[in-house]
């Protein structure tokens, strides 16, 4: 099966091409099914590859499949080649799996959209890029996927491009990502010049063998991290992700929660030997960035009222966790959290999509409430997701988060651990707030039924593709449950969010030995850093205690939220500054619109006035001088004789005085 690993990207490619050519003819829902089918094909191949790998010895679990030579110049020999190893196949599995589910969901969600087939065109292109990203044998193929997903993200965020906000968000995402790509590219260059290759194997082996200078390794690691910061929306480049919610909700689920944004984490894990070889402060820096991002985003999420914005900031926060893990050496935990997060966050995004769908494009949580009665399946699955993210055992999120915190304490000390813990409290709090506002309490939409829709059409037409077309036919406003095709993915994801934790259970006494650290063992060939490295730390010794502490924090957060938003024991504190995201975005805009713009204007002015001015100026000087000179040509013959005479004298002077014997 590994020989046909190229089929994984090939399926979506074919799907993409078919929809490109026949998209309009296929129409709805044909295009959707075709796209979903293509992704399913990839998933199947991934599963096959998984079992193939599984059947090999641990040392043999790496296979390179070269499709063709891509950029062969001199020393730089880059192949279009795929690396099948536990890490990439793991990624493939969950990427294609979730992608398939989301494709299904989208068939329902995008129902009636005039650009239905185009949506799936982009979606398949995205899956293609994403699989290239994770399967790439070298940094360049990964970069191809990396930029590819960025481009798809751009296309999908600005999918409803007639709204300026959507278009801006798409552009913002792309450009911000590009800042990160700058780091990625430089890392590649540095790697190439240090090792003579950009393939992962060569680079990682060089790092492991210690044949790289520490400074080089640090450079590569940090530059890759810059790339990861861009792609995975960490401070200071996270700004694009909340805006990216302008895209259709399946996009948010797939790209901006489950897969693309985790690419940065994947990359860091992929290159983990480089991090190990780097100077010590490099992983510490990464951990700090991750932790601060996690906390920072969590605080912002506290005060958001847009159902998707909450999830977006939550995503940023969770990604921060993953980087905290990476920086703490918990690579497996990072991957683990990536997977569980993919499950529950995709679930919740889809759930929110279902809610939005059911609420006729309403996204403001203050206008929701009590939806559990109208959308029981959505509500149930959403609640599972909520429990997972809040860190309530035995849901998936608890296990992964717990492991990250364990490693953090063991490797990076108590400060970061506390930050992580506080973030966990906040996470539980704001997620509970969201659940309460959306599904519980009083229905706040009933009172302003139709005019609400009408008003919302004009005032906050956030994601309105073309509401009148989708739901305009409804005579009266009443939330409704989504069609089965949307619910099936929800249910499947809810199941995964519930039991996803089993792939990497900690070594608690009550858990059978064979169930412990399965993911870690599986990833062993790729990630050598694991449980063994922290075995001697005191934190490891008290891991059960720490787990209890984490549970306590989660429950505390939930309790507080219930107290405030359900029992109304206290007025909610939602400071303006949090709602505005600490004004970070505002500051950037102010800078770009102010001094930045001035700088650009200055360059344009410089170009026009100085550079071009010099050119035109020299022309003017010539004609000006000529104009002056021209006045010597008086037309008077005696003047002419005088000028001639002057010439004679000068010439004579040269010959007689200059050259003569005088």
């Amino acid at each position, binding site marked *: 099966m590994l020989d046909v690993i190229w089929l994984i990207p090939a399926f979506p490619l074919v799907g993409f091409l078919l929809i490109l050519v026949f998209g309009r003819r296929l129409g709805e829902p044909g295009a959707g099914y075709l796209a979903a089918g293509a992704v399913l094909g990839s998933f199947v191949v991934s599963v096959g590859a998984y079992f193939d790998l599984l059947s090999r010895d641990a040392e043999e679990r790496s296979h390179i499949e070269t499709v063709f030579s891509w950029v062969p110049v001199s020393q730089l020999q880059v192949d279009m080649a795929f690396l099948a190893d536990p890490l990439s196949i793991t990624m493939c599995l969950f990427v294609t799996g979730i992608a398939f589910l989301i494709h299904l969901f989208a068939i329902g969600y995008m129902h009636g959209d005039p650009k239905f087939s185009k949506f799936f065109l982009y979606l398949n292109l995205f899956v293609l890029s994403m699989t290239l990203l994770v399967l790439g044998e070298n940094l360049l193929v990964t970069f191809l996927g990396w930029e590819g997903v960025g481009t798809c993200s751009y296309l999908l965020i600005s999918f409803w491009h007639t709204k300026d906000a959507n278009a801006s968000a798409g552009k913002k995402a792309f450009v911000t990502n590009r800042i990160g790509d700058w780091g990625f590219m430089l890392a590649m260059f540095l790697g190439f010049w240090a090792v003579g290759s950009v393939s992962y194997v060569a680079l990682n082996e060089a790092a492991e063998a210690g044949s790289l200078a520490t400074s080089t390794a640090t450079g590569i690691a940090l530059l890759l991290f810059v790339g990861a910061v861009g792609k995975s929306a960490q401070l200071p480049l996270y700004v694009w992700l909340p805006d990216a919610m302008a895209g259709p909700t399946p996009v948010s689920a797939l790209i901006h929660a489950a897969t693309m944004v985790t690419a940065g984490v994947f990359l860091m894990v992929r290159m983990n030997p480089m991090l190990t070889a780097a100077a010590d402060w490099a992983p510490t820096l990464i951990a700090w960035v991750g932790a601060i991002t996690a906390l920072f985003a969590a605080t912002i999420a506290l005060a958001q009222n847009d159902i998707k914005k909450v999830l977006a900031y939550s995503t940023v926060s969770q990604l921060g966790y993953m980087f905290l893990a990476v920086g703490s050496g918990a690579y497996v935990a990072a991957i683990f959290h990536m997977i569980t997060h993919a499950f529950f966050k995709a679930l919740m995004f889809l759930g929110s999509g279902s809610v939005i769908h059911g609420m006729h494009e309403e996204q403001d949580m203050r206008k929701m409430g009590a939806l559990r009665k109208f959308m029981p399946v959505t509500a149930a699955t959403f609640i599972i997701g909520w429990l997972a993210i809040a860190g309530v055992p035995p849901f998936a999120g608890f296990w992964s988060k717990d492991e990250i915190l364990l490693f953090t304490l063991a490797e990076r000390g108590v400060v970061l651990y506390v930050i992580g813990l506080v973030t966990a409290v906040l996470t539980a709090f704001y997620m509970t707030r969201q659940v309460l506002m959306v599904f519980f309490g009083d229905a706040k939409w009933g009172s302003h039924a139709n005019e609400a829709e009408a008003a919302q059409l004009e005032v906050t037409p956030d994601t309105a593709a073309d509401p009148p077309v989708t739901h305009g036919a409804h005579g009266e406003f009443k939330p409704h449950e989504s069609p089965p095709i949307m619910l099936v993915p929800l249910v499947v994801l809810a199941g995964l969010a519930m039991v996803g934790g089993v792939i990497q259970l900690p070594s608690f006494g009550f858990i059978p030995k064979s169930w412990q650290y399965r993911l870690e063992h599986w990833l062993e060939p790729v990630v050598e850093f694991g449980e063994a490295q922290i075995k001697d730390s005191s934190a490891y010794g008290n891991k059960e205690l720490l787990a209890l502490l984490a549970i306590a924090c989660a429950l505390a957060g939930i309790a507080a939220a219930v107290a405030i938003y359900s029992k109304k024991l206290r007025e909610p504190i939602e400071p303006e500054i949090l709602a505005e995201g600490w004004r970070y975005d505002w500051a950037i805009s102010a800078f770009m619109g102010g001094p930045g713009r001035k700088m650009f204007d200055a360059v344009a002015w410089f170009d026009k006035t100085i550079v071009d001015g010099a050119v035109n100026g020299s022309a003017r000087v010539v004609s000006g001088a000529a104009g002056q000179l021209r006045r010597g040509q008086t*037309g008077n*013959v005696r003047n002419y004789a*005088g000028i001639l005479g002057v010439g004679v004298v000068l010439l004579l002077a040269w010959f007689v005085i200059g050259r003569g014997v005088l």
Partner: protein
Amino acid sequence: MTAVVLAAVPTTTYYLVLAAILFAIGAVGVMVRRNPLVMFMCIELMLNAVNLSFVALATRFADIDGQTAVFFVMVVAAAEVVVGLGIIISILRRRPGVNADDLAELKG
């Protein structure tokens, strides 16, 4: 004193210096006079200066070539006068009393 003067013989250089002065006077004349005919006369002055130089040098070198050259200069001067006066006449006939300063329509 007188004897000295009488005994002195002007050398070739004397003639050449005289010729140079004459030439310069002629050149100045072309620059300051406005009547085309007079300007023309000044050119004749210059030619005479040249002739004087030639003859003085011919004598100094005992070389008849210099005198021959003067002969040709005279021919040229004659021809030039004919042509020049022809042009002047053809202009003055149509624009009587015009002087060199008036003929300045072409310029710049």
